């Protein structure tokens, strides 16, 4: 474990889960965790177990749905998929993150006047 890995901000994991389900379709918990690790380029410090708190929270809010099914290699697993409400929520969250990132970028960018 290198020190440069990012700690997850409160709420970021939820957005990642939603985005993952939107692009990949129905997935089980392990799949979602692996996917987030891969997409983030192993830059995120993720204890895979923490995904389950996020999953149950999203499910209770009605943004994802869950169903027991069978995996490719014939193993029983719980599959999650995004709901219509989830898509709407993801759109809002994504816009929010994009804005935040833009603003942070501007604030932290070396100023044109060269004060830094």
């Amino acid at each position: 474990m290198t020190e440069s890995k990012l700690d997850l901000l409160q709420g970021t994991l939820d957005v990642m889960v939603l985005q993952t389900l939107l692009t990949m379709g129905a997935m089980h918990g392990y799949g979602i965790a692996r996917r987030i690790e891969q997409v983030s380029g192993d830059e995120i410090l993720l204890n895979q177990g923490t995904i389950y708190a996020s999953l149950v929270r999203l499910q209770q809010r009605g943004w994802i749905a869950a169903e027991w099914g069978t995996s490719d290699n014939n193993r029983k697993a719980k599959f999650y998929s995004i709901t219509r409400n989830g898509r709407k929520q993801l759109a809002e969250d994504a816009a929010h993150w994009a804005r935040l990132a833009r603003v942070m970028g501007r604030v932290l960018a070396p100023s044109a006047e060269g004060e830094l």
Partner: protein
Amino acid sequence: MGTLREGLQRVLSFLHKQDRDSELDAEVAAHLELAVEEDMRRGLSEEEARRQALVRFGGMVQAKEQQREARGLPWLDVLLQDLRFTFRTLDRDRGFTAIAVIILGLGIGANIAVFSVVNTILLRPLPLRNPQQLVRILSKNIRGGESSMTYSADATEVFQRRTRSFQSVSGYYAFSGPDNLKLKGNGQPLPVTGLMVGGNFFQTLGIEPSLGRLFTAEECLHNSRPAVLLSHAFWKRQYRSDRGIVGQAINLNGTPVTVIGVLPDSFDFGSIFSPGYKVDVYGPVIYDDIRDEGNTMALVGRLNPGVSLAQAQAEADLIFPTLPFSLKHPEYVGGYTGNLLGLKDYVSGKLRRSLIVLWCAVGLILLIVCVNLSNLLLARATARSKEFAMRTALGATRGRLVRQLLTESLILSFAGALFGLGLAFAITIYLAHQGSIALPLLSSVRIDGAALAWTLFVAVSAAVFFGLVPALRISGGNLQEFLKDSGHGSSDGKKHEALRSALIVSEIALACVLLVGAGLLLRSFLRILDVDLGFEPSRAASISVDYNDGGDAVKRSVVWQDVLRRVEAIPGVETAGITDNLPMSRNRSWGIQVKGKAYRKGELEDTFVYIVSPGFLNAIGMHLVKGRDIRWDDINRKEGVVIINETVARRLWPGEDPVGRLAQTGGMDARVIGVVADVHESSVEGNPGWQMYLSGAAPQFGPEGAQLVVRTKLPPETLAASVMSTLRQINPAQPATEFRPIQRLVDHAVSPRRFFVLLVGIFAGLGLVLASLGIYGVISYSVTQRTQEIGIRMALGASQGRVQLAVIGKTLLLALIGIVAGTVASLAIAVLIASLLYGTKETDGATFLSMTLLLLLVALLAGYIPARRASRIHPMIALRNN
């Protein structure tokens, strides 16, 4: 919408905890299998793959816990856990639980009961419509008893017409006593208490009848058809709540009177205007009939909306001095003043200070209870220190421990409150049925919503108060220290000991304040019981006598002589007499002056007047100082005769012998024939006023009803039947009036003080017991803790006496510090209750000394028991025990 859905889901998850848990387990198991398979496909051994999967999954327990928190109601889980745990611990330690609940129950119960009384009398508005508008109109000079607080019919009517501040003014006839009417039915005539009230009395107070209607204007006119309203209690008792009684005629004093309605249960005239007075029927005052009777109306009014008491008072100051005493006789000066007092103030103003003192006393009790429990919990917590150290080691945070301990305190407190509520419920029911205590509104004392809210407040704050200190103290402890502390030989944490000693000292100080306060009040009460009343209430009784003399003095004289002769013939009766008014009950006043002398304004005082028979002074036990008693042959004299009290003698004939002088009273001449010692006519505590006794068998003065007073060597109750049968022989229409010991009048007069002294005394006793329990607990605990030490000392040669002395010395030190602090606090507090004391200085040395000695004695006793135990410790056993 989203949050609602989530909340619902959380509740569902909470309810289906096991299902969700096993589902999560299955899901996590699947997760790990998938991870292992993937890694094995990459060529790792199964063992290594499993290890890797577990590492990447992270903390298994934390992840599951996180998921549970995200899906369910974590705070409720914790609470339930705490509750379950609390019940288990308390159940394991039943002795402690029982003691704690009983102590708390006593403290909280006393608080609820006193709050209910305070709330009823002081805080809650009167049970009338817009009670803040109601005003009692009194005279500014109240020396003359009822007569100087009342107004004539003409004055009342003129004021009603001229006032602009009041929307309505009404009143009641202030001079009717209990059992003043006879109700004739099928059997023997029944004594009934009737009160005449202004036609608009109930409208003014805002009372609607629960059945029928109120008086009409016609019914308040001379020679109108008589009508009465029944009180709810009388209707229930006498007519078994028969609704059909309305509109029917009943026979009162031989006259058919129509019942026009029944008043609501919530209205109790006595509890507002005259505590202890139970009115059965209300009739309208007919002003034309009482126009010549002088001042008879006690006034009450309702202010116009928006008019302040001060504005109304300013108007009253202008109007009252101009009011006529009698329009027919403009030569008599009214000389009225009007003192407006909010009705609520009139009812409870005098009691405010007593009630606040009572409230404070009961608050002190609660403080002592809390300190006691704090101490108990601390001792218990020390015994549980290993448990807490273990929990901390297993990851419980400080907040979690404090929460657990506070939950325990709350549970104890609520159990105590429940017990206390039961107690308070019983006390309030008992109080509400104490007709003999002359406190207003007492009959409506009950546990209401406000009292329940107060209970909740008291229970929660008590729990925080007694639970927080031990909780913080324990949870703040250093883990290592605790684990170390439980080892052999080390004496238990000095900090705990110091804290407990401080608690004990404050407990003793609080108890000291309570004891001194109760002592001062008790001494005042004893002083009051010692007051020479001017008559002998014991072994005397009175009964109201019915006769018909047709207003003729000669006939009356014959009847009275007959009654007295026959009653005195009853075995056991020493002597008997008749009066129209008894001391300590209703009264009226006239004027008296030296005949032919002119007086300045204010030089004369209203004089209490009693119309009596020969022998009455003897029967009630008054002391004739000079001259002689009234005789039957005084009837035939041209001039009246009067006996005056020493105060009148001193003021009208200073330095002279008044006997034989001519006085003027009630517009007649009267020869002074005797002087009697002053009588406390209206209260035990107040100074006696001017008094005079006129012959009731003489034509000049008519009595107002008749009270037969009997003096006996036997207990008065034993004569009730024979006196009644004698009266019935003379007059078959004699109603079954009550034969009342005179002592009861005195008891009634001092009953509020007796009530307060009793309660404060009980609280002081309770405080003393609790404080001694606390001392016993702490000393006993410290002896137990130091068993080995004491054993070693004794093995090294310390004598039993020395060991005892050491333990008692410690007790003595704590007690002395507490008593010194308590005495200083008592001195400050005594000043606050100074106005409640009678014949006792607030710094009364004897009281302070005796109460502190009592406290010290009890403290030493509480310390002696553990000291004895300590000295009995056998060195061998104490040392082997470890």
